[in-house]
């Protein structure tokens, strides 16, 4: 019984002469082997080959499709917009395509954050990038402008009606490197304050216009929160304090620290310029919010949104992009306002900007490049649609338009565009950057109480020192 079992089990391992021998020596076994095994393998291989051929066929047909559409100009566009932003962007893309039948827009939405920037960098490095893409303005210095990005043709933009004077100076200049314009800003997306109008009304915080009254200084802000707490019996304010890659603790710090007049890095991003006294004052205040039970101490961003959305929280701090979520909840009465000026005279707020860039193409020019400029110009002029998602349009004619002023509550905080605290100019800064993750983690621990303000500051400083010491991977000209 044992030997035959043996033989049938060995051949697959040593598919060699032994098997041929076995076949000739023991004819009774050969047919079984042939019947049982080879057809299935052959079938599998055949199937695999067919699949491969299909793939090739699909690839070639894809190529021919491009060639066939030669009458149209192909415009490839990469972005990172998901959620409500994604919906708005797709609507705008559809409207653009409808208005420009001669342009074949191929829009591609990639996963937000680090994965997006990895792909965009590699596409630019290969010189076979999409014609146009979206980039967070504060990430520009880390993107080797001139090497991974091509400069905009300002004359061509002018031809489509876009001029540098149409933008807030501070934002436009952030897109300029060595006298060339590498980024054209689409919006500013600041850190803002959402408030529940019902709760605010009960606590007597609303003015005659139904909007929240201006709050100034930390004492007044704490008083307001305590009043709300007495009214609702709940923690009055919530914002992200922890979670994987949490960044709002950094946004919160950056906002208040900028109000206090502090800077993080020197202009050349080579030196730490943190003012310990100011930073500690801000961090102590942040910790007081959670320690006193005024802010929810341990919540990720999803939990904070859910809490405010349920109508139990008086205030919520985050970027303005949650407006679509809250607007779709008809039973939530809410308003939006600039973050109050707590540490200084100006109500600065942390922000970044979505901007259009031209990833490096070795043969940039001609109709596709023209289409890219035309696309950017059209998007800017129609950015009212984009503003519905909460972002403040960077393009002044839209921001100053009546239509935008009628947009509620989006226009309530629009004035912040002139007082934004953008990240320091450094290759490691900007949305979803290493700096955000490191500082977010350091300040998260201050909020949750696992670090003291001093420990949080020390951790932040050592993280920044490490980033400063790390060479810019692309060896770019800008910092």
């Amino acid at each position, binding site marked *: 019984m044992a030997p035959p079992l043996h033989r049938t089990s060995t051949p697959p391992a040593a598919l060699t*002469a032994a098997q041929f021998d076995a076949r000739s020596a023991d004819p009774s076994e050969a047919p079984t082997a042939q019947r049982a095994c080879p057809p299935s393998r052959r079938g599998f291989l055949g199937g695999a080959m067919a699949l491969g051929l299909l793939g090739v066929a699909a690839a070639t047909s894809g190529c021919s499709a491009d060639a066939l559409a030669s009458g149209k100009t192909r415009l490839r566009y990469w972005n990172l917009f998901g959620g409500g932003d994604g919906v708005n962007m797709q609507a705008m893309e559809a409207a653009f395509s409808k208005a420009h039948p001669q342009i074949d827009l191929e829009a591609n939405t990639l996963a937000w954050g680090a994965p997006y920037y990895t792909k965009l960098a590699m596409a630019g490095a290969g010189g076979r990038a999409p014609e146009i893409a979206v980039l967070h303005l504060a990430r520009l210095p880390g993107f080797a402008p001139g*090497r*991974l990005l091509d400069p905009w043709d300002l004359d061509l933009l002018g031809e489509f009606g876009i001029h540098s004077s149409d933008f807030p100076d501070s934002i436009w200049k952030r897109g300029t490197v060595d006298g060339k314009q590498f980024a054209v800003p689409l919006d500013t997306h600041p850190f803002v304050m959402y408030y529940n109008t019902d709760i605010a009304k009960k606590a007597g915080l609303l003015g005659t216009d139904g909007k929240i009254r201006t709050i100034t200084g930390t004492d007044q802000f704490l008083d307001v929160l305590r009043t709300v707490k007495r009214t609702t019996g709940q923690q009055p304010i919530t914002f992200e304090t922890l979670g994987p890659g949490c960044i709002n603790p950094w946004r919160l710090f950056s906002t208040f620290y900028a109000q206090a007049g502090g800077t993080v890095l020197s202009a050349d991003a080579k030196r730490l310029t943190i003012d310990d006294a100011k930073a500690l004052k801000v961090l102590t205040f942040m910790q007081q919010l959670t320690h006193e039970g005024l802010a929810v101490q341990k919540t990720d961003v999803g*939990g904070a949104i859910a809490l405010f959305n349920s109508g139990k929280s008086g205030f919520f701090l985050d970027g303005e992009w949650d407006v679509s979520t809250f607007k779709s909840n008809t039973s939530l009465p809410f308003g939006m306002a600039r973050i109050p000026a707590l540490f200084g005279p100006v109500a600065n707020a942390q922000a970044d900007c979505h901007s259009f860039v031209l990833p490096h193409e070795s043969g940039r020019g001609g109709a596709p490049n023209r289409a890219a400029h035309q696309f950017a110009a059209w998007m800017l002029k129609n950015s009212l649609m984009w503003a519905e998602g909460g972002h403040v349009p960077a393009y002044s004619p839209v921001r100053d338009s009546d239509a935008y002023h009628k947009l509620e509550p989006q226009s309530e905080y629009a004035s912040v565009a002139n007082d934004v605290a953008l990240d320091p100019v450094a290759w490691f800064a900007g949305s979803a950057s*290493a700096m955000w993750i490191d500082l977010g983690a350091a300040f998260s621990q201050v909020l949750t109480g696992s670090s003291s303000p001093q420990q949080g500051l020390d951790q932040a400083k050592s993280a920044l020192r490490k980033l400063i010491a*790390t060479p810019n991977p692309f060896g770019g000209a800008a910092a």
Partner: protein
Amino acid sequence: MSATLTGTDAGSAPDPGSGADSAGRSRTSGRVRRGWTEHGLVFTAPFLLVYALFLVWPLLYGVRISFSDYNLAGINSKFIGLDNYTEAFKDPLVWQSLWHTVEFTLMSTPPLVVLGLAMALIAHQLRFVRWLWRLSYFAPFVLPSAVVAVIWTWIFEPGFGLIDGTFKSTIGWLTDSQYAMASVVLTTVWWTVGFNFLLYLAALQGIPAQLYEAAELDGAGPWKRLWKITIPMLKRTTGLVVVLQLIASLKIFDQIYMMTGGGPDNSTRPVLEYMYDVGFTGYRTGYASAVSYILFVLIVVVSLVQLRLGRNREEG
């Protein structure tokens, strides 16, 4: 068992040795061995090609870029000698993340081995609806890591997840650095213990029944039989399970990347994620390569030590 082993040994052992000279002798003699070069190479060529292209070449290329400040975009890079290696040895984050990998290994291996054995013993003993036990113990293993990560992220959701919701607790399973690693270990045990269970179950079925019969006749109770027969007879399987477990644990990345992203505050970031973060998020491919070669050498050393220990044990 020993019969099969000698059988395969006899079948395969002569091949590698004779393969070399059979090439020379194939025309004249070596009727049996001729096939290796004539057919074997043809059949293995597609694999060898892919292997060389996607494994051997990148491995060598990686050594080269670990000596440069090569970046993801491949621009402006130059040879910088051992700078990356000196930086890596001084980088506390390398050692911190390496420790997290080791920590994960130390925390996950014992429960995976012990629970796998315990589940196999239960499934082996039970005489009713056996398929149900086997299926339910093994089922999680067939899930892809992304599905497992999503399921458990919801279970661990602070406040209203399955655990916090059921026990009215407010533990930040994945958001508190005290518990995050343990939560990932729990997830991994649930997910992969089924494989060890299967190995043990197969081995249990291979233990000759007469051993138990003889022991029973001599008056050995169930515990005695477990400790004196079952566990010693499973020694080889345990060795296999532990080795497979160590290798799998050193490669930990998926669950952690998806469940905690290495957080909170990098408290769960394994060394593979550090390489990913530095290389793909930070664009520093050269430095990431250097770190990966350091890990490579460490794993080789560990494997050699383990091999040596294992051999001694077998001989002894």
